[in-house]
């Protein structure tokens, strides 16, 4: 080995070490999130957290997050808000000031989103919302938070009435969980029913600690409505559907607000879930959205269960929008704010563009389970199938 060769090898080794050191020195992009990992909302929140983790892992596997042209690894910093929304403001403040995160992902559920709006405003920290749906969102001034959902009660009410009129529904019975979101849907549905030609036969509310819904379903059944609405959350949705099956509730249009799009529901009800209409604006079977099915397949494979068609889809969309904005303008908060407010983003739910804080491009949709698959049945422009009357319950 001559001197020249030794020098060449030394130079190569030095260059390699330098490159490695540079790569090692690339600071990870710290992404903070506070979400319910324990407590009563954990079962619903964890699938959303799963979507965040899948997004971060996929990015890291593909070289990292593109920050205005430079790929950097992503480091998720996750805190448990213990399903206590009063903790979220402190958690997000800690993420911003103590952990000094570069980006934020949202907590679970509307109250948690509202709890941190003040913190985001104080630090002028832009963040994509996800699993929040309330008419009150519109009262949030455009600034540092955006909501990708299109399942807002004031739009859902009139759209549900349009869907029912298209199916020639004449009579309706409603049962509503005493919770802010369900009661908002109830309020706007009742408003839309006025002067619609559809008669409201009955409307009852019940407290969250209900253990048996036999009496409610029994009353509904005795009224023989064309459409029944169970404005419920997963726990009571199970109770409602079990009672409906036992008593053979035979309304051709049966709507259950939250639950039917979650994986465990099809496990409990199997074929009996067919015909149930629910809220949601995403389906992997919509071929207009090429990213939808790959996301569905990856999530299903990774977590051994299908993603919730609402919460998980929204959580992942919030990651996609954040990722696209960072790729374009980097981590500067002012630039991010402008980018999110003005650009159109390609997501698993199709293109998303914001008007103020709201998603202006995704219409309010409804899903119906058909042969084990949740299909979009409304509006016609985005439908993957047409409405089918609820058939008899299987024994």
């Amino acid at each position, binding site marked *: 080995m001559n001197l020249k060769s030794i020098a060449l090898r030394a130079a190569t080794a030095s260059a390699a070490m330098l490159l490695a050191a540079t790569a090692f020195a690339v600071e990870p992009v710290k992404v903070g999130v506070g979400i319910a990992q324990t407590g009563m909302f954990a079962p619903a929140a964890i*699938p959303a957290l799963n979507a965040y983790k899948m997004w971060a892992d996929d990015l890291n596997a593909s070289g990292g997050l593109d920050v205005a042209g430079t790929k950097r690894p992503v480091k998720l910093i996750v805190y448990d808000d213990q399903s206590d929304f009063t903790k979220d403001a402190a958690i997000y403040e800690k993420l911003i000031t103590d952990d000094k995160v570069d980006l934020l992902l949202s907590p679970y559920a509307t109250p948690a989103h509202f709890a941190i709006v003040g913190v985001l405003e104080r630090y002028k920290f832009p963040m994509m919302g996800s699993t929040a749906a309330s008419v009150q969102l519109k009262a949030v001034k455009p600034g540092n938070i955006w909501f990708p959902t299109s399942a807002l009660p004031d739009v859902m009410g009139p759209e549900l009435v349009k869907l029912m009129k298209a199916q020639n529904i004449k009579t309706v019975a409603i049962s509503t969980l005493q919770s802010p979101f369900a009661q908002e849907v109830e309020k706007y549905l009742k408003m839309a029913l006025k002067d619609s030609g559809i008669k409201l036969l009955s409307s009852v509310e019940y407290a969250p600690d209900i253990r048996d819904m036999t009496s409610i379903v029994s009353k509904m059944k005795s009224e023989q409505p064309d459409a029944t609405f169970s404005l419920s959350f997963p726990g009571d949705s199970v109770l409602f559907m079990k009672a409906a099956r036992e008593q053979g509730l035979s309304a051709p249009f049966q709507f259950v607000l939250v639950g039917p799009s979650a994986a465990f529901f099809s496990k409990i009800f199997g074929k009996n879930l067919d015909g149930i209409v629910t809220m949601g604006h995403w389906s992997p079977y919509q071929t207009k959205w090429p990213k939808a099915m790959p996301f569905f397949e990856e999530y299903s494979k990774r977590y051994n269960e299908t993603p919730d068609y609402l919460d998980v889809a929204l959580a992942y969309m919030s990651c996609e929008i954040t990722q696209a904005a960072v790729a374009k303008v980097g981590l500067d908060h002012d630039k991010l704010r402008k980018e999110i407010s003005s650009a159109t983003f390609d997501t698993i739910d199709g293109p998303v563009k914001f008007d103020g804080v709201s998603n202006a491009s995704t219409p309010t949709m409804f899903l119906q389970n058909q042969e084990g698959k949740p299909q979009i049945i409304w509006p016609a422009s985005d439908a993957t199938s047409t409405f089918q009357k609820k058939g008899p319950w299987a024994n």
Partner: protein
Amino acid sequence: MDQLASTQLLLSALVLASIYALVALGLNLIYGTMRLLNVAHGELMMLGGYTSFWAFELLGVGTLWSMFGAIALTAALGALCYVTVFRYVVRNRELAARLESNSLLIFFGFSIIIQNGLSIAFSADQRSYTYLNGIFALGDARVELNRLAVLGVGAAATAACVLFFRFSRLGLATRALIQQRDAASLVGINADRIQLLVFCVGFGMAGLAGSLVSMTETVTPFGGFPYTISAFIVIILGGLGNLTGGILGAVLLATIEIYGVALTSSAYRSILVYGVFIAILFLRPQGLLGRKMR
């Protein structure tokens, strides 16, 4: 009004009552014998629920078999809990002086540990499985077979426990301990042995209740708390430490929940439940079958 006479409502009320009675039984036993407030009772139920869920998912074993596993697991946990913690607490004069409040804190700690342990081990996902879900028609009523199983097993287990504590030697000794703790010791009743038995039976009944409920509801690490609350209402309604009173309290609570709602509106359920609860506390502070404190 026709609705009130329906077999459907009667069956629902009986199913709910049998679950409440079973859940309250374990809580009542432990409070009655040792004055311990087991606020982790609902979490023990969830432990039983997970036992049946995993037995079904992994081994294909139905709940009517796995419930014995749930009882064994939670009873063993009861024994461990008594031997390692409460035996010492009861014997320590200083700690025993504040037994009720101390037990509240200790069991609260247990509930957090069980919740988070289950959450770490199995995630917080809602777990469910389909077992005995065929529909059984009884006159004009239709009911899922798993709810009938809840009714049958729940009622049988409750009756067996009550009969055991009423007629067996060990049961009589337990009742003696409930009624006159000091006098029971004086006549040679082995309080330590009885307390161990009570912990095993109390925890085991919670496990059994959770196993049964897992057939009809989803199981999550955090799903037990509402049952703890219901169980406390039941045992206070019936009379703290009175097992027969607990059954009466369970029937009363279930009747209010099912028939009260049918008669008025579901919106009034909580008002009715807590209204009757407060009324009974005013009229009979010792509960329906409880004895007046002297």
